[in-house]
Structures are given as C-alpha cells and as structure tokens.
C-alpha cells in the first residue's frame, strides 16, 4: 500500500488467488456496467477499447476531438434508456438531444447536426412515440441543432422498454480551445454550475413514489450557451465535464484519474438543494452520486476563476455557480472532501448503480 494508485485499481493476478475469487470475474452484464462507475470504466477499458483500437477513442473524452479536412470537429454519441419516459421537467426526448449536445459542449463545440435512432418496442402507443418525437424536436430547436439523419427499428414485445433512443452529434471546436483532463494542473479551481442531484431525484421521485412539497423538476438543458459565455472570458479553460451518471462524485474522480492530480472539495460549498438532500436522506442515497443533467463542472486556471465564475452567474444556466474546490498535487487520482465539521473523507468512484441503503 505504498502508492495510492495501487489502492484505487488493485492489479492482482486472479490465477494466483488461493481462495474462491470474489465476484470480480463477472460472466454476464450486470446493471452496474451501465452505471457510470468503476464497472462501466472496466467494460470500456477491457472489452471495447482493445477491440476497437484507435488513438481517438483511447482518450475517453465525453466527445472525440477529430481533425477532418482542416477542421477540428467534436463527435459524440449517447443512448437513452430512461424509465419513466416522461418525468417532472422533461422526457427521454429532451435527454436524447441535451445529452449529446452537452457531450459536445464539454469539448467546447457547439453542436450542429444530430443523428437520431429509435428502437421501439412492439405495442408501444404511437401517441407516446409522437410525444417523445415532439419533445425531441423542440429540444433540438432550443439547442440550435438540426436532426439531419435517423433510423427506426422495432423489437418484439418484451424485448425493449417502450422506447430507446440513440443520438450522435457533430460540431466545430472553436480555434484556441483545447479542453482535456490532461490540461488540469494543481491550483486549478473547480467550479460547479449549479445545484446538484436535481435530475436524478426528479426521476427517482416518480419511481419511488415520492412527492415533493416544493417542485423538483429535472434540470435537463442544453449547456452550449453557458459554455460559450465561459469561453468568451478565456478560451483557456482546462476541462469541462457534465456530471451525469454517477453524479459529481464520479465526474470528479474521472477527472482526477485522467489528469493525475488530486482534487479537494469543501463539502459545504457543494450546492445541494434541501429537497435533494432530504430525498436522499429518506432513500439512503448520497447526493454526490446522484445523476445531473444541465450541469457542468469546470477546472479553470486560478487567474481566470473569478471572471469565469462571474460570466457563469450572469447566465441563467449558471446563476447558482459555485467554487467548490481545487486541483492539488497531493493524493493524485483521489478526490477528498472536507466535511462540514472539519474532518476529511475520500469521495470514491461509485462501483455501479447506487443502491438505497436501509441501514
């Protein structure tokens, strides 16, 4: 245990184990493989990346940065399998646009064109499909992106969950913009664009039969305009990430790992709305790992931090932006939170999907 990297990702030869192997050796896909945590990362690292090869994929950004015909393009794809299809504040149609548009925005690109593939389950109401399509079209118009190509497949009843959507998008990366985790250096300031956990709790409220006295709606939104406002201050932002699956905790861990720096956050600076905190308390969840949409986390050079924060707060999508911490040279790859009482704790990468605890 001389080195923190060993602790994070134990590399042990399973053949040398003398005891029954723990459940590392999964022979089938489990839900956690799609949870945005350690299992997802392993699936990509061990199965997809070696099979596909390629330097671009190996960078594992939210979007790929491509050079094509002298242009710098951002290219990204995302699939959407949310249940329920309609939830407070949005629908799978909104997510399908904003998820991909935001992946592009995290590389500094403004999305220009989307593809859209529908996988429909036999028996789903056409009216439902139409409502999702309307929502998708409206979200695309709001984000200033055109759905340029599409595809539809139908699977037998029982082989899908109503509607699955895949979208892919491309957009131009402005000159001088280079947003990558590898650019993070100790001293960078960590900014989050607003209250966290809202989208995940809005979805869970429907699933778990929670009602909210105050309205909790998904904050699903296209972040392009906010990113433009930030880049107008300086193109020299270091990295952006939208903390969707796995929440802020997973996003910070990914950035810490990819950048090789440590991250320290001050817990009480992390904006968590009371309704989110209370819903999490009732269900036994940690808001740090609850999914967000329409939020971003930025690592910004310290000298630009105040100006970037001011620009974010001047924009409706960043009105409640906060500085929550900084990148540090200590504990590379590890995220540490200072607790409200003055203690510290490690904020770990979640393993798979977050499970409600009773205890």
């Amino acid at each position, binding site marked *: 245990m001389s080195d923190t990297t060993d602790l994070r990702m134990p590399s042990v030869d399973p053949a040398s184990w003398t005891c029954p192997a723990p459940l590392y050796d999964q022979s089938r896909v489990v839900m956690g493989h799609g949870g945005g945590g350690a299992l997802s990362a392993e699936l990509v690292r061990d199965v997809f990346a070696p099979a596909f090869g390629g330097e671009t994929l190996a960078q594992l950004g939210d979007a790929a940065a491509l050079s094509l015909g002298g242009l710098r393009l951002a290219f990204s794809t995302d699939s959407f399998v949310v249940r329920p299809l309609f939830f407070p504040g949005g629908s799978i149609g909104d997510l399908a646009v904003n998820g991909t548009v935001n992946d592009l925005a995290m590389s500094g690109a403004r999305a220009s064109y989307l593809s859209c593939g529908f996988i429909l389950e036999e028996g789903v109401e056409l009216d439902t499909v139409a409502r999702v399509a309307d929502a998708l079209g409206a979200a695309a118009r709001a984000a200033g992106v055109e759905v340029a190509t599409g595809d539809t497949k139908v699977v037998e009843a029982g082989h899908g969950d109503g509607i699955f959507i895949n979208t892919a998008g491309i957009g131009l990366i402005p000159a001088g913009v280079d947003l990558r985790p590898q650019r993070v250096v100790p001293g960078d300031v960590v900014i989050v664009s607003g209250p966290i956990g809202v989208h995940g709790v809005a979805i869970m409220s429907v699933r778990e039969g929670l009602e909210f006295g105050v309205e909790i709606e998904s904050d699903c939104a296209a972040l392009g305009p906010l990113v433009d406002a930030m880049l107008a201050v300086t193109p020299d932002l270091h990295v952006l990430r939208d903390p969707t699956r796995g929440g802020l905790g997973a996003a910070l861990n990914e950035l810490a790992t990819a950048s090789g720096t440590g991250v320290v956050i001050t817990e009480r600076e992390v904006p968590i709305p009371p309704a989110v905190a*209370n*819903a999490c308390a*009732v269900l036994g969840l940690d808001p740090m790992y609850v999914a967000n949409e329409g939020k971003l986390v930025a690592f910004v050079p310290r000298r630009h931090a105040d100006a970037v924060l001011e620009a974010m707060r001047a924009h409706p999508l960043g009105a409640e932006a906060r500085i929550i911490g900084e990148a540090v040279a200590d504990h590379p790859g590890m995220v540490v939170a200072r607790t409200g009482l*003055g203690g510290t704790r490690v904020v770990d990468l979640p393993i798979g999907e977050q499970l409600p605890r009773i205890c």
Partner: protein
Amino acid sequence: MCLAVPGKVLDIEERDGTRMATVDFGGVVKEVCLEYLPDIQVGEYAIVHVGFALQRLDEESAKQTLELFETLGMLQEEFGDPWETAAEANGTLPPGSEEALR
C-alpha cells in the same frame, strides 16, 4: 443499521384496514404505515424506517438536548481548540481548515 429519519405527519387515513399517513420529510412527502403508532396525531413528528413510523419524536426532548449543548464547553476555551489539537495529533487537517468551519 437502521437508517430512520424524522418526518411530520400531514394526514392520516385507513387503507385496506391499515393505518397510513402521508409524512413530510422537509418538503419530501412519502406514504408511511402508522400501525405501530396508533395514537400519533397530524402535526406530530415520527421516526420513520423502511416506510414505517416506529416512534414518536419528542420535540420537547429535542429542544432540551440542543439547549444542553449550548451550555457545554464554555469554560474549556483555555484547553485550546479541539480541531487544532486533533489535527496536530493525527495530522489530518491542513492549516486553513478553520475557515471551513464557519
């Protein structure tokens, strides 16, 4: 064990012969079974675990406990700040953490 949270009873009704309530957890409202607190009234607080109210929360006791805490530690300032002491002892807290407490 036993994640249980305090919530305020909003209303009470019989359902399938079971005494149920809607309970407010700071703006989050959830259905809760009241079979184990048959005499709890609307407006009172209950400790809720996995959808069951298990005990009435005694608001007067809560108040007294907090008042007791207010009276503690007044004469101990001379012993130094416990955070600093603890930090020195186990080296966990960097300087500057004092601001983080306020």
